[in-house]
C-alpha cells in the first residue's frame, strides 16, 4: 500500500512538474483556436443542414449551395479566442432561399469545445428549428442541426479566416420604469461580433423630443442608457430610434421601437 501511494503521488508530481514547466515555457498554447473552429463548424453545419432539408422535403439544398461561413469568439471581448471551454459562440451565415436570414445575416451557435478538438454545437431554434422535426413521412425525428457534435484537426490550418460579422445591438428592456425625476433608461446589449456596437439612441414622447444618447458597447456586454429629459406627465408611450453606426441593429442600421409608459 505504501508503494502504491508513493507511486501515484510521484507520478502526479512528475505530471504536475512537467506541466508547470511546459506551461511556464510557452503559455500553454492550445490547439483549440478560432480559425480551426471557423473552418470546421460550417462544414459540419452545412452537411447536417442538407440532411435536415432532405427530411423536411426541401429540394435544392446541398452543403455547397449553403455557402456557410462562421465567425467564432470565446468569452466576448475580454477573453482571448483560444482554448477549450463552454463559452465559445459562433455566428454562422448561410443561404437558403426557403429560410431567409434575419437582417443581421447570421445565426448564433453556442459551443462547448473540448481540449481534444471535439465540440458540441447548439443552434438557435429560430433559425434551425427545435430538437425534433416532422419529416415528409409524418414521423417525428431528431433535428440533425439543433444540436450536433464535431471534431476538427488539432494540427489543421490555423491561419485566420478573415470572417467578420458585425455585432448585433438589441434592446433588452421590455417595460419602462421612470425614476423619481420621471426620467427613463433603456438597456442595450451588444452581441457577439467583430466590432462591438456604436450608435445613437433618441427618444420621442408624442411630440416632445426627449433627446438622444450615444453609445459604444464592447461585444457581449450590455449598457444602460439614460435619457436626459424627464418624460412629460400623461405620456402613454415613448418611441425610440436606434441608429447603429458600427455593428448592426435589429432591423438594419436604423430601427424603431415603441415602449409603453406604466399607468399612473
Amino acid at each position, binding site marked *: *500500500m505504501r*508503494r*502504491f501511494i508513493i*507511486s*501515484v503521488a510521484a*507520478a*502526479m508530481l512528475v*505530471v504536475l512538474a*512537467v*506541466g508547470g514547466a*511546459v*506551461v511556464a*515555457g*510557452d503559455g*500553454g*498554447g*492550445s*490547439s*483549440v483556436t478560432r480559425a480551426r473552429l471557423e473552418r*470546421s463548424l460550417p*462544414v*459540419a*453545419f*452545412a*452537411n*447536417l443542414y442538407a*440532411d435536415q432539408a432532405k427530411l423536411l422535403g426541401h429540394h435544392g439544398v446541398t452543403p455547397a449551395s449553403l455557402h456557410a461561413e462562421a465567425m467564432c469568439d470565446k468569452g466576448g471581448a475580454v477573453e482571448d479566442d483560444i*482554448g*477549450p*471551454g463552454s463559452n465559445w459562440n459562433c455566428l454562422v451565415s448561410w443561404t437558403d432561399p426557403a429560410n431567409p436570414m434575419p437582417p443581421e445575416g447570421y445565426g448564433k451557435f453556442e459551443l462547448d469545445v*473540448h*481540449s*481534444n*478538438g*471535439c465540440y*458540441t454545437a447548439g443552434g438557435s431554434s429560430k433559425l434551425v428549428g427545435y430538437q425534433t422535426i416532422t419529416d415528409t413521412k409524418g414521423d417525428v425525428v*431528431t433535428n*440533425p442541426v439543433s*444540436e*450536433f*457534435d*464535431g*471534431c*476538427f*484537426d*488539432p*494540427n*489543421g490550418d490555423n491561419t485566420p479566416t478573415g470572417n467578420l460579422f458585425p455585432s448585433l445591438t438589441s434592446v433588452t428592456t421590455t417595460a419602462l420604469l421612470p425614476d423619481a425625476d420621471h426620467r427613463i433608461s433603456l438597456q442595450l446589449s451588444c452581441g457577439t461580433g467583430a466590432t462591438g456596437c456604436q450608435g445613437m439612441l433618441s427618444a420621442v414622447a408624442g411630440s416632445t423630443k426627449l433627446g438622444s444618447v450615444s453609445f459604444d458597447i464592447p461585444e457581449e456586454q450590455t449598457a444602460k442608457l439614460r435619457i436626459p429629459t424627464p418624460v412629460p406627465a400623461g405620456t402613454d408611450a415613448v418611441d425610440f430610434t436606434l441608429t447603429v453606426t458600427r455593428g448592426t441593429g435589429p432591423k438594419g442600421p436604423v430601427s424603431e421601437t415603441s415602449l409603453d409608459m406604466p399607468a399612473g
Partner: protein
Amino acid sequence: MTTTVAQPRTPTSEQVTDPGRPRFGAALRWETRKLRAQLRARALVIGAILAPIAVVLVVHSQPRPPKDTLFGRFATENGFAMALLVLGVASQWVLPLLTAIVAGDIFASEDQHGTWKTVLTRSISRSRLFWAKAVVAVVFALLTLVLLAASTIAFSVLIVGAHPLTGLSGQTIPASSAVALVSTAWASMALPMVGFTCLALLFSVWSRNAAVGIAAPVVLGLVMQLVGALGGIETLRPFLLTTPFEAWHGLLAAPRFTGPLLESVVTSAGWSVACLTAAFLILRRRDITGG
C-alpha cells in the same frame, strides 16, 4: 527407490556444446501456460466477449441516448455509433484496467508466491524471463482488445442495426465503409493499450505487489485524462498516454485527418520503451531476498 538419479553425471557431449540452454520459446511457453491456468485470465477473455452484449443491450433500451459522449446521440438507433460510444467509454478506464489485470500481476505474482527463486535457480536468465513475461502480457492485451472490439462491433450491428453513420464533420458515411472505419478506430487502441501494458509491467516489477500493479496504471490513466482535459496546459497533451485513445476521431471526420494517429505511435512507443527499460533495469539489478 532409484539410486541411479543420484549418481554424478559425467558431462555428456550434449552438455558441453549447449548445456541445456533454454530457448526464448520455452520461457514463452511456460508463461503462456501459467497464464492459461489462471482464473483471472480466463475470466477476462470471457468478459471481453460477453460484457459488450450486456452494455449494448442496456444502452439500446434507454429512452434517451447518452449525448454527453461522442456518438452517444446516435447510439440507440445506429449500431456503428453504438460501437464508437462503447469505444469512447472503454478507453477512459476499461482498456487500461483490462491489460493491467494481467500485466500488473505477471511479475508481482512471482513475489506473491515466492517463486522468483524457484525459476531463477534454473537455467533461464533474468533477461529472457523478463522478455517472455513482457511479450505474453502484450499479446494478452492485444488478444483481449481484439475480442472486445469484435464482440462490440458485431453485437452493436446485430442489436442496433447497420445504418449509414453521421460522421464528425456531419457527413454521411455509408454502412459499408463505416464497418472499416469503426474497426480501424478500435484497432488504433492497440498502441496506447501496449503503452498501458508496459506501464503496468513497470509497476508490477517495481512494487512487487499485484494490487499496485493493477490499480496504479488505471489511476494514472484517469489522472492523465483529467490533465489532458484541462484548459491551459494542453501542450502536455501529446505527452500523455491517454491522448492516443482519442486519435481515432480524425478517421471519422471529412476530410480525414491522421496526424493524431501518427503522434499516438510516437507517444505510445515512447511510453512503452521508457517503461520497459526501467522495468528491465529494476529487475536486472534487484536482489531476490523473499520467498
